[in-house]
């Protein structure tokens, strides 16, 4: 858990990040959270996990293999989801946050967990 908490902390320290959640799959329950106030982290865990799992199934069915990252840009924020061992890491950011930085950090976190 310490390693997971360190990972969440590192992601949460990135500019523009409002919340980081480690969610279990397939149920989408929050296993650990680092978040600003005002973020419904349970809803974040549940819905982000659902979208990620749907994406993973769609990519697999399409022959694209395992999904390594999902990113959704929306009017009021950006959502990033990546698998990390037994959980998925969910990062919620402001709409203006640089996606590249979060993407690389999530990929690194994902690889560390897999190692």
């Amino acid at each position, binding site marked *: 858990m310490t390693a997971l908490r360190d990972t969440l902390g590192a992601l949460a320290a990135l500019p523009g990040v409002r919340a980081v959640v480690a969610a279990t799959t397939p149920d989408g329950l929050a296993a650990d959270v680092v978040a600003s106030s005002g973020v*419904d982290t349970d*809803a*974040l865990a549940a*819905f*982000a996990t*659902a*979208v990620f799992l*749907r*994406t993973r*199934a*769609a*990519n697999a*069915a*399409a*022959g*694209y*293999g*395992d*999904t*390594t*990252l*999902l*990113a*959704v*840009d*929306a*009017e*009021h*924020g950006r*959502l990033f989801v990546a698998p990390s061992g037994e959980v998925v890491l969910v990062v*919620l950011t402001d709409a203006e946050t640089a996606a590249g930085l979060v*993407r690389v950090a999530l990929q690194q976190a994902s690889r560390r967990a897999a190692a």
Partner: protein
Amino acid sequence: MVADRLQSWMDEVHRDPASLTVLSLVDALRRQGRLEEARRYALRGLEQHPHLADAHDALARVMADLGDDAQAGDEWSFALRLDPMHLDALRGLGFLAWKRRDLAGAEQYLARALQASPTDDGLAAALRRVRSDLRRPGAPPAAEAPLRPATPSTAAASRALFAPLLGDGDRTALLLDRDGLVLAGTYVDGTGTDVADEIGAHLGGLADEARRALEHLSLGRWDVMLAEAQHATVVLGPAPDGAVVMVAAARDTQVGLVRRLLVQARQRAMAWMAGT
């Protein structure tokens, strides 16, 4: 001077049969009324560049000047399959439709052409003329007009909608309606089978899932959805009427490039939806 330039172009085309100077040569010969020569060079240009919309357009113009409307129409239709927004092909097909009094067809082609070139006063005037003719008593009612570009060409044009964007790389793009059914684009797998419907069905549902999630999270409307997988990068973007544009590229394609292709694909999709 003109003769010198023509000779210089001919010399270049003879030296390098693949030179695109052939297109300028064909046009110059056609304008001089040397139609048989223009036709021969246009055919040579097509042999070298069978997938170049401009080469089909060049031959179409010559055949139209020779009075062979059927072949001109075929060549312009082919140009549109290669590039659904090819301005001169749209203009040419609009002209042919008008000639045979297919005013509804002419209006559709010219309207698409004007979308592609909104500041073209000549096109705007032609479109006004056609619309005026349509409103006049005795004009063939739209319901009786022959189906616009013979359904097979329409289907082919929609399949090739994104072809100019994708190049020869391992990429595909689809326009899906709100139910995940394919509106335009094609997706051929390694065996040559068109799997667009299947891919569309799998990936089209993602947009709905994302929409629901964002609504519950109060994040507003979605703009881009990007999924990186082992063998592909897939990006989705919303289009009018609940439709979705999807671009997929081999995993080694730069993510930023795939996103850029989505922007271009959405522009094409929106122009095409407005014109259909």
